[in-house]
């Protein structure tokens, strides 16, 4: 008797593309990031072995590629990255933010290697930030938490039947696999996880799995808000992000992570 082949039926094709209805042309930013602190965690590719600096334009090309790979509006990813990495912040604040995110990533990696040793949350008796995430806290370029990142990656695998990043992004120097599912240990991978999460939120907010259509302004604002969380604070984040997008369309503000 011939063996029966079980083939997974994939709900989406991976060719879906969501756009923003009526979005005006947004000017590309081609200069250097205004950020006074320009450091990141990154696993080099074979051709980058001796590089110590990645040009800002190349980082913007990663952002565009990540948005295209997941079929999400490029401008949405650029706005969220700007919301999460205020490029105009002072050096002190950026250094503190980088240090905090690096430590969170370090605790997440330690937790991963040492069998859940680091507590996920501060214990309720803690005098400082009781109940707040530690090892699973938000981190990395896109400031995503580990559970959110993993859920987004799993969503891409289950609904779009592919890895959250293409092989040329996933495998780096000596074949090193950067699909670690840990926020912040490689900022290029973070962009793909972030785009995967935005794709997941677009599908959720529109109520259409494999969304392949235009998004209304209200839906875009809701996706921005959902990226931040739920409740009034997240709604405020969503309306601020929407304002940033509208201002960029009108040339009133610059999207530093956006280059066509």
């Amino acid at each position: 008797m011939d063996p029966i082949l079980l083939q997974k039926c994939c709900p989406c094709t991976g060719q879906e593309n969501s756009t923003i209805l009526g979005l005006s042309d947004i000017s590309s930013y081609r200069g250097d990031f205004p950020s006074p602190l320009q450091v990141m965690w990154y696993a080099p590719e074979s051709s980058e072995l001796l590089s110590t600096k990645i040009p800002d334009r190349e980082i913007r090309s990663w952002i565009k590629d990540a948005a295209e790979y997941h079929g999400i509006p490029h401008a949405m990813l650029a706005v969220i990255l700007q919301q999460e990495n205020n490029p105009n912040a002072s050096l002190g604040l950026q250094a503190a933010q980088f240090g905090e995110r690096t430590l969170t990533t370090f605790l997440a990696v330690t937790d991963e290697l040492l069998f859940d040793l680091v507590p996920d949350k501060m214990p309720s008796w803690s005098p400082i930030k009781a109940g707040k995430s530690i090892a699973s806290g938000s981190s990395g370029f896109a400031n995503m938490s580990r559970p959110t990142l993993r859920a987004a990656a799993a969503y891409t695998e289950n609904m779009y039947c592919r890895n959250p990043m293409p092989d040329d992004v996933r495998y780096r120097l000596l074949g090193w696999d950067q699909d670690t599912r840990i926020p912040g240990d490689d900022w290029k991978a973070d962009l793909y996880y972030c785009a995967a999460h935005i794709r997941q939120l677009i599908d959720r907010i529109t109520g259409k799995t494999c969304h392949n259509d235009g998004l209304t302004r209200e839906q875009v604002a809701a996706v921005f808000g959902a990226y931040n969380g739920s409740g009034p604070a997240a709604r405020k984040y969503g309306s601020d992000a929407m304002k940033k997008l509208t201002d960029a369309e009108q040339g009133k503000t610059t999207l530093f992570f956006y280059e066509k």
Partner: protein
Amino acid sequence: MTATLFFAFTTALLYLIFRLVKAPNKRKSLAYLTGFLVLSYVFGPYISNQGSLIENEYYVIPVQSSILTFRPTVYDQEGSGDNWIYAQDFTYYYYSGAGIASERLLYIYISRAEAKNCKDFEPTEFNSWCIIHAQEHDGPEL
């Protein structure tokens, strides 16, 4: 700021416990440890709130509360904001989660005295709050 504070607090606590175990003068080491814990509990909310205000521009400390006494108890674990959902101080319980449908509201709250009149009151289950006060925000509709 959470990871930094966790790291600093745990390191200091472990050091003081190690010192207490090892030191010949246990009374002095015990005094240091007690002092550290007392100071942590007294200034913990201030340090936590100050850290959150610096790192998160959407962090709200209710006008009914203060930076010295406000203590979030449940955080939103899904989003990038790590915003508080439930919180409390010596006088009130607060809620600022997805259950707030009105776009004009910032959070809702109930006093501890009023909570005593609620049957089956749960501080982290706002559906069990029998009296609710609402705080609106000053800005445009969210």
